């Protein structure tokens, strides 16, 4: 008998394939938002493994995303139609590039995972933030990656199917991990490192593993992004992008996958929804200037949400600092 989670994964993949079939008739603006939602779900869910379930505060998720985006973009650009121009050939190359991008990001995750063994809380946050900037600076100075000009010309391989099938896979992996006895190590590290060690849990292994798995999926999300926008720029993977993902995790509720997914959807739609708000015909004229400053409204909504639900929409953990 198949596990319930496997059936759900299969259903999600089939549904994305079915919807992908009709994607041509979706308004390009809405299509753009939809793909962004999928990519953000992957980013937020994978960061949640690190920040929410394992209790390590990472502020460098966009760095891993950049590693995956540039890694996979460079591969598809370099190999182009090496595997033929058929659908099978280009798809195979895309899958290969996504996987390689994920692995490159995972390698970067390994490098960040190591300092996490010695640092915690605010200090770790600063190191991961620094790592994000290092990756960005390296790309800004790497001529083969387009340096400050950005990298473009990728084929638009990313479609609805790949985005949402991979989002479903990310959710599947994270949920299966944290609900297994094997993955209980992540939660134990978050709750009490000393007790975790005393119960025979190799805390080093679990912290590094969280970073590596989290980074892998961020890399995959980066690959999807690169082959959707067809142009990537180092500034697109800066600290602010990392912050966006952290906000999704905190707002959704640290350690709640469903909450984080919903927050990823909401926070992708919200800025666009506010854009539409300014053009509502029945809006009184005096309100229009306020509605036009949508990012102020957006920030205000975030503040109100955090005041009223500090534990996040679906979280039970609360927004607390880790005890030393």
């Amino acid at each position: 008998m198949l596990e319930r989670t496997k059936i759900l994964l299969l259903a999600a993949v089939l549904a994305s394939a079915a919807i992908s079939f009709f994607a041509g008739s979706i308004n390009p603006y809405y299509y753009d938002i939809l793909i962004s939602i999928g990519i953000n779900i992957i980013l937020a869910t994978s960061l949640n493994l690190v920040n929410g379930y394992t209790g390590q505060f990472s502020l460098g998720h966009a760095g891993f995303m950049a590693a995956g985006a540039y890694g996979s973009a460079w591969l598809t650009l370099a190999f182009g139609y090496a595997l033929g121009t058929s659908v099978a050939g280009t798809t195979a190359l895309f899958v290969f590039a996504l996987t390689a991008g994920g692995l490159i990001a995972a390698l970067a995750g390994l490098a960040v995972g190591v300092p996490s063994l010695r640092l915690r809380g605010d200090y770790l946050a600063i190191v991961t933030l620094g790592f994000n900037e290092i990756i960005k600076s390296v790309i800004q100075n790497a001529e083969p990656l387009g340096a400050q000009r950005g990298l473009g010309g990728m084929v638009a391989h990313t479609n609805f199917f790949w985005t949402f099938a991979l989002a479903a896979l990310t959710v599947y992996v994270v949920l299966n991990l944290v609900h297994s006895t094997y993955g209980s190590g992540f939660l134990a590290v978050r709750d009490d490192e000393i007790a975790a060690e005393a119960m025979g849990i190799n805390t080093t292994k679990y912290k590094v593993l969280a970073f590596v798995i989290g980074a892998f999926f961020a890399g995959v999300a980066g690959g999807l992004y690169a082959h959707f926008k067809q142009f990537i720029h180092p500034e697109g993977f800066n600290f602010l992008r990392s912050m966006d993902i952290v906000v999704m995790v905190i707002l959704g509720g640290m350690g709640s996958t469903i909450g984080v997914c919903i927050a990823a959807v909401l926070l992708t739609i919200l800025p666009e929804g506010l854009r539409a708000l300014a053009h509502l015909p029945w809006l009184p004229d005096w309100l229009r200037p306020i509605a036009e400053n949508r990012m102020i409204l957006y920030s205000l909504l975030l503040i109100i949400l955090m005041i009223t639900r500090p534990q996040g929409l679906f979280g039970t953990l609360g927004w607390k600092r880790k005890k030393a």
Partner: protein
Amino acid sequence: MNAPLLQLDQATMQFGGLKCVCDLSFIVTAGGLVGLIGPNGAGKTTVFNLITGVYRPTAGNITFAGKSVVGHRPYRITSRGIARTFQNIRLFGSLTVFDNVRTACNMHLRHGISHALMRGPKFAAENRTTENFVEELLQIFGLTAARDEPCRSLSYGGQRRLEIVRALATRPKLLLLDEPAAGMNPTEKIELMKLIRFTQEKFGLAVLLVEHDMKVVMGICERIIVLDYGRKIAEGTPTEIRADPKVIAAYLGKEAA
């Protein structure tokens, strides 16, 4: 039977100029029940931290089942058969009673991450074994009713009991209990004494017990070691310890002795 399971050989722990534990030697035999007592700040918990690898002794040696544990990480030491509870309860606060115990089964898993992701038949079988094992432990210690409650909702005594259950789930040969009776009322203490005795016999464990409460220690320990300022000042049966002038002096002051 009487081969030493745990042996401390002149173990010393020095923090800067302060020697918290000084030239401490004692043994715990397999299946033995030894008490470690001493006034506040005598270094009892430090001894536990040395045995479990939280601290590395600055001098001396600690062997478990014939092999030195010095310099090993705590999780390695636990995997060799030493489990402990904590003076200030350290449960996994966000997890349920069941999950707290299940987490301690982590190191005995035969299948790794790929099985947790693929969820094949082997994973299901092992999962069932683990679940049955946890259920059984909860049953023995009367925690079945609270199985899916958050562990923090348990009473203080219940949380202490859960810590013991969690430690047992690592399937230890030696159980270290750090002040299990702290904060308990007299009835709970009697229950606890029964529980420790029962656990020791049921699982064939050696137990090393740090305790303040004299009634508990005298009631169940076969042998008692007394620490004061990090040094061993006496060792013997409860009757011997009760009569020892040095122990009386350390606890009640020189005048009383």
